[in-house]
Each structure stands twice: as structure tokens, then as C-alpha cells.
């Protein structure tokens, strides 16, 4: 069952989409949009990496399947019991009430999820986007070591090739709109950035990764670092004007909140489009592996 890696990947993608639908019907549009875009970019990245895993040997000695199944079932049953216990425990809604009451009065935002992310818990988000940016930074030397001789990009669909550029611009506009409306409606820097990364992946897949880089405002890793600096800068403005790091000031589009969210947007866009573009482009090879083996 599911011997094929591509089938496994597609199934995982489907599980992700199913989770997104679940979020969508549980009153969490922000989560649903994030999950949809993340799943799309994940499938693109994993497919681009598939050739490097080599041929799958069907004689792979597996862990004895009864043991494997038993362990998996125990894990599932444990989760089931844990969740049942959680269901029985009383709900503590003090925090929910606090955030619900203070989101608009103290932080001037209607979308409570976004307000928590960029205002109340902004320091946490800053650390988190730093991890996202550094994951690309850490992967870059590894990506340089992966070498492919063949150009891998889809050819054939004239329609997609023609429609690519307008579609790219449209998607970037959508991403910017999602970013700007994020504070008061579902949206925000994370979702906007992921949408923009999807747009970049589209160009890299249908045309060429080089064109995708050319259409970016900066090189991916630079963009991620600029975003990080912007988010940090938003924090320092708060330190200078209100003597507290990350104390936000201003209103609407011209506020440190928006500056921070733009930073998040750039980090997410730069990092994930960086992964896709570097994976799809045959980077300047260090040396092909075959030649190395022949020498030995």
C-alpha cells in the first residue's frame, strides 16, 4: 500500500487541505488560509526534492509491521484518551475574555488573532520569524551542494506560460491586499507572505527560477533579512517613543504595527520563495557526484 513516494506526498497534501477545511468551518479563516498556502508550497518543495532521495528499493527491510502498527495504534489511543480527559476538564476562558475586550480598545485592531500576533505577543512573533529566516540561511549551503544536471521545469502549457505574468501580478496584489487588511479582517503578514511565495513558486515552476528571482524585489535571503530588520526596527521605535520595546504607536497603515507586519510578510515571502527557487534552479555545481565517485 502506498509504495510510491509521490502517492504518499499527495496523500499528505490532502490531509493538510482537509485540516484547512476543518479550520475554515471552525471559525478560523486565518488558520485555513495559512494551512492552504503552506500545504501548496510544501508539495512543491517536496516534489522538487524527490529526485535526490534516489530510487526506492522495494525490498527495504521494514520494522516488523505488527510492531509498527501496534506502536502507531498506541500513540493514537493515547491521544484519544488525552483529548477525552481534556474535554472533561473545565474551560478556562479568562485569556479569551481579556483578549476579546482589549483588542480594539488598546490595540486598535478588529481581527483579534492578528492583534495577538503583531501586538500583544509581538516579541514571540519576532523570535518566530527569526527562526523562519534562519532556516533558509541554514539550508542555503546544503542547497548549494545539491546538484542536478537536468533543467526541471514544466514545458508545454502555452496557456499557463502566457497567463503567468498577469497571474503573478494579480497574486502579488492579492498578497499586498491581504497584508494591509490583516489588522481588521482575516489576513495579515503570514498569510500575505505565503500567498506571495506561492506566486513566486508559480513563476519558478512554469517559467524558470531565474525569472522568479528577477521578478522579486530583492534576492530571497536578502528580503528575509530586510524583513527581520524592519520588524526589529518597529520594536526599537517603540523603545524610543514609549520606552518599552515593541510598544506600538501610530494608526492605520502608518503605524509600527503595520511596519512589523510588513517585516513578517517579507521574511515569510523571502524564506519560502528562497527554498522553492533554490531547489528548482540548478545551482552552480560544486562538482557532480558521479565524477567524484569515478575518481575514487
Amino acid at each position, binding site marked *: 500500500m502506498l509504495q510510491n513516494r509521490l502517492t504518499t*506526498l499527495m496523500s499528505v497534501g490532502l490531509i493538510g487541505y482537509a485540516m484547512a477545511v476543518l479550520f475554515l468551518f471552525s471559525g478560523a479563516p486565518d488558520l485555513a488560509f495559512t494551512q492552504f498556502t503552506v500545504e501548496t508550497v510544501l508539495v512543491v518543495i517536496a516534489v522538487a526534492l524527490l529526485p535526490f532521495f534516489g530510487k526506492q528499493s522495494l525490498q527495504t527491510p521494514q520494522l516488523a509491521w505488527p510492531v509498527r502498527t501496534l506502536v502507531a495504534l498506541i500513540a493514537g489511543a493515547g491521544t484519544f484518551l488525552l483529548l477525552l480527559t481534556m474535554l472533561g476538564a473545565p474551560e478556562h476562558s479568562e485569556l479569551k475574555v481579556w483578549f476579546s475586550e482589549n483588542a480594539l480598545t488598546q490595540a486598535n485592531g478588529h481581527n483579534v488573532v492578528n492583534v495577538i500576533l503583531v501586538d500583544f505577543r509581538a516579541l514571540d512573533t519576532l523570535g518566530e520569524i527569526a527562526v523562519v529566516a534562519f532556516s533558509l540561511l541554514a539550508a542555503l549551503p546544503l542547497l548549494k551542494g545539491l546538484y542536478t544536471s537536468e533543467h526541471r521545469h514544466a514545458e508545454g502549457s502555452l496557456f499557463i506560460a502566457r497567463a503567468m505574468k498577469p497571474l503573478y501580478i494579480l497574486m502579488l496584489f492579492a498578497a499586498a491586499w491581504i497584508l494591509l487588511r490583516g489588522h481588521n479582517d482575516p489576513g495579515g503578514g503570514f498569510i500575505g507572505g505565503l500567498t506571495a511565495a506561492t506566486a513566486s513558486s508559480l513563476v519558478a515552476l512554469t517559467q524558470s527560477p531565474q525569472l522568479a528571482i528577477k521578478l522579486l524585489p530583492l534576492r530571497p535571503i536578502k528580503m528575509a533579512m530586510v524583513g527581520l530588520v524592519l520588524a526589529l526596527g518597529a520594536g526599537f521605535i517603540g523603545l524610543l517613543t514609549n520606552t518599552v520595546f515593541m510598544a506600538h504607536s501610530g494608526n492605520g497603515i502608518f503605524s509600527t504595527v503595520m511596519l512589523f507586519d510588513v517585516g513578517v510578510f517579507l521574511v515569510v515571502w523571502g524564506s519560502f520563495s528562497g527554498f522553492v527557487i533554490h531547489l528548482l534552479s540548478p545551482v552552480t555545481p560544486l562538482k557532480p557526484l558521479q565524477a567524484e565517485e569515478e575518481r575514487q
Partner: protein
Amino acid sequence: MSLWLILVISVTVSAGVWLLLSRDLFRIMMGLAVLSMAVNTLVFYAGRPGSIIAPVIESGHQVLSTDAANPLSQALVLTAIVIGFALLCFSLVLAAMVSYKKQSANLQILQESEPQSAADSKHSKPPIMETE
């Protein structure tokens, strides 16, 4: 509704663990993806969903209506999705690099090609592939 949701999360955890116990490196990475999805849903579930109204304060109101969904668990899960994805990307690239260098994604072969310490060298098989 909530019992079904619990069941779905548990089955997803089972599927993720089952994939994690595979010998194929790519499968293991997919298991990581499925397991992180399951845990995200678990955290989301801890916020007691049940409302289909997004936690957005309606214009004209000062506070969020009590019918709306819990915003806190959503904010936590949103960052968890993105950070989990970034780490998954890095792990995928790392795994691809390792299997490419060793020309195998089989965990057993990868384990055997590890340089061995003196203590356990007599118990395990000799390396079948020399490191560079």
C-alpha cells in the same frame, strides 16, 4: 461533532507515527509533516472550537461577541503552522542531502555507513560505504 474531531486527531497521530517508523527517509519526513499537523489541530482543539464565527470584532462594537471562536488558540496555531513548516523544509533539504550523498534513503544503510565509535564497533556490522 467534538467526538468525531477527537477521533480524527487520534487517527492522524496514528498515521504520522506509522510513517515515522518507516525505514525510508522520505517517509519519515512525511510522518513529521502529518504529526505536526495533528499536533496543531490538537492545540487548536484545546481552545474548544464549536463556533463558526471568526474572531473579528464587528464594526460598531467595542468587544468581541461571545459567540465568536477562541482567538488565542488560533494565534498560537498560526505561528505553529508556519514555524513547523520552516523546520520541515530545512529537515527535508537535510534529508535529501544525506540520501543524495550516500545514494540511499534507506535508514538501515545510512546507519551502517556512520563512522563507528570503539565501544559499539564489535556489535554492529562493518560500514558498507566509506565516508569521504
